[in-house]
């Protein structure tokens, strides 16, 4: 009888403890500080956006958002652990608390924002779904793709846009679902499909890795809005604010002409917004629960948005993407951050 009793008690204890663990919801900011590093969900490998380089160091404009947050929180942009996620598991990984934030070319949509318990905090790349075909098919418009086989990554908004686009134009297609970007590349180059469709940025990134990039063409039609941005868990506004303003600081940095090269000189600028941003005028860091030099750390270690863009995906990189929509609002794009005051 005592055995049963002790069994019962230990069972109750285990249950109680596990309930306590599952029920505890400390603020993400505290959790990150305690851990000493940021757990950031990234792509499994998308050149220019989030992929490890030859030395195994993660690089890309999505990765730079993670680095900016680490710079803001720790004053050290390298204190990030990257968790590669497939398009399928990314939300579950974030919901379960395995990562602190997701920065992985993820489209901000209503159902994801509302129904999945996520919070999108901004847009770091305005994208749209495009189609890539081999040049020797002689296709010049997506409207000529009736009957084609289309390679598509599963679990993405592109899948639904594709269905809508072909339906709306009365065309048929064969969908060839693949799991990752690299599998899509393999299937497309082997000729399993005529068309590879994903966000145009992804097409450029893939094309850069093909043996003969010039043999493939991205068709002019952009069939969807794909605002890509970082996301955090719903319900922790303090943490969402930190991630949102880390991204905004990079955009405002470009707007004010602050680069990683001139950030120290800019500290003696006479523009009050520059002084507020760089923490010379104190008080703005405390509002976020950060040190006053948080934005200074971002701009000196990661650089402003333009630097990040030019370094990873701009015209001088193999990816070769023009700024286009992603130029600042004053340069003809739609990139716009709320004022820093």
């Amino acid at each position, binding site marked *: *009888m005592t055995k*049963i009793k002790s069994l*019962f008690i230990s*069972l109750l204890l285990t*249950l109680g403890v*596990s*309930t306590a663990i*599952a*029920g505890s*919801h400390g603020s993400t900011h505290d959790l990150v500080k305690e851990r000493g590093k940021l757990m950031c969900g990234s792509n499994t490998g998308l050149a220019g956006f989030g992929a490890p380089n030859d030395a195994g160091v993660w690089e890309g404009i999505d990765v730079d958002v993670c680095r900016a947050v680490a710079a803001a929180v720790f004053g050290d942009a390298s204190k990030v652990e990257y968790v590669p996620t497939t*398009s*399928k598991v990314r*939300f*579950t990984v974030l*919901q379960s608390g395995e990562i602190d934030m997701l920065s992985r070319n993820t489209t901000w949509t209503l*159902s*994801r924002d509302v*129904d*999945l*318990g996520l919070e999108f905090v901004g847009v770091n790349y305005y994208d749209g779904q495009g189609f890539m075909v081999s040049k020797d*098919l002689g296709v010049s418009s997506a409207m000529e*793709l*009736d*009957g*084609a*086989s289309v390679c598509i990554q*599963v*679990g*993405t908004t592109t*899948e*639904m846009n*594709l*269905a*809508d686009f072909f*339906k709306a134009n009365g065309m048929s*297609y*064969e*969908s*060839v*679902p*693949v*799991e990752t970007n690299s*599998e899509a590349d*393999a*299937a497309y180059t*082997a*000729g*399993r499909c*005529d068309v590879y469709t994903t966000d145009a940025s992804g097409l450029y990134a893939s094309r850069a890795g093909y043996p003969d990039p010039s043999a493939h063409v991205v068709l002019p039609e952009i069939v969807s809005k794909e605002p890509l941005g970082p996301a955090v*868990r*719903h*319900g922790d506004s303090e943490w969402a604010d930190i991630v949102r303003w880390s991204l905004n600081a990079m955009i405002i940095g470009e707007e004010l002409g602050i680069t990683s090269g001139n950030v120290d000189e800019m500290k003696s600028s006479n523009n009050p917004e520059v002084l507020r941003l760089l923490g010379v005028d104190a008080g703005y860091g405390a509002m976020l629960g950060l040190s006053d030099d948080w934005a200074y750390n971002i701009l000196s270690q990661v650089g402003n948005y333009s630097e990040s863009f030019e370094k990873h995906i701009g015209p001088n990189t193999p990816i070769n993407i023009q700024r286009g929509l992603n130029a600042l609002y004053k340069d003809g794009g739609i990139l716009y951050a709320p004022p820093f005051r």
Partner: protein
Amino acid sequence: MESYFVRKLIFDEKSRSLLIQTLVIGLFALFIYLIAQQTAYNLEKRGISSGFDFLNISAGYDISIRLIPFTSEDTHLRAYFVGLLNTLMIAVCGCFLATIMGFLVGVIRLSSNWLFRNIAYVYVEFTRNVPVLLQIILYYSILLHLPKIKQAIEIFDGFFLTNRGFFTPSPIFKDGFSIVLWSFIVAILASIFIKRILKKKQEQTGKQYPIFYINSALIIFTPILFYYIMGRPLEFDTPVLKGFNFKGGMVIRPEFLGMLFGLSIYTAAFISETVRSGIIAVSKGQREASQALGLKNNLVMRLIVIPQALRVIIPPLTSQYLNLTKNSSLGIAIGYADLVHGFGGISLNQTGRAIEIMLMVMLTYLTISLTISLFMNIYNKSVQFKGNA
């Protein structure tokens, strides 16, 4: 009176074990209940919606490999059935092919021909010891390196082999074809009847009749006869290369073939070992005795060895069928649109209902497996010793 019950519960062995078992079951139920509660609470706290209402929302994606019509406007529930049918299709085709290959290889491994025996040996040892996922990916990659669509190989008239699948003509049934079908069914029933009568005669008179040849001729020629009587009510739609792809006809996709080859070649290796052990398990004396009675070699096999070997073969064969069915969920690796890939992957991602969908998928696999076990157990009973041996 009360103390009597308490004493009985503690000191009577039967009552005591009953009490303990009840307690354990109760605690287990409580445990499950608490986990479910906690999960529901956590989901709600994180603002994640739950429930099965998503099943009636339109899926929004297309599935190319399907047995029933499906468009992006159909519901997630229909996507579930499309996936389920694809899973069943690969499981049935895979089990069928694996059984045939397994029996062949199993018999060859016992053959007296040194070369055949050792080829079978190498095949079994290689496939058995390499993970099935790698084999599936290997066969799929080979299929992807078949000629591209524009350089399709025409094997026979209207049969094309490409890396987008195997295109074949599809049958178009016209009026009167159902009569051909019925004649086929009637022929089968008649052949069963004929077999019974001739067997009876054989037992009475001892005279042997060529039952097999009579019945084969009956089953093959009756439908052909009716086919011509009805004015050939069958036409074929041949695939034609038009634009990007072949139009018309039927197609077997490389994703399906990759799965089929991977699963059946892998499982056949295990089945062949089961078959071999079953045949070896029949004692040598049985064979020698039947040969001494003057039975020919193929009759020894058919009448004496195989019926006894089946008793040993069926139970492990069942578990191989279950393995193959469960392994079909690996289709996700090469984009075969089975239950896990379509409903359990894409629908899950579009709706975010991970717990609900995974529960449904798991229960489905459980049901399929239990059904296979049930039928195999019934079959197993039918081949076991009858009477009180």
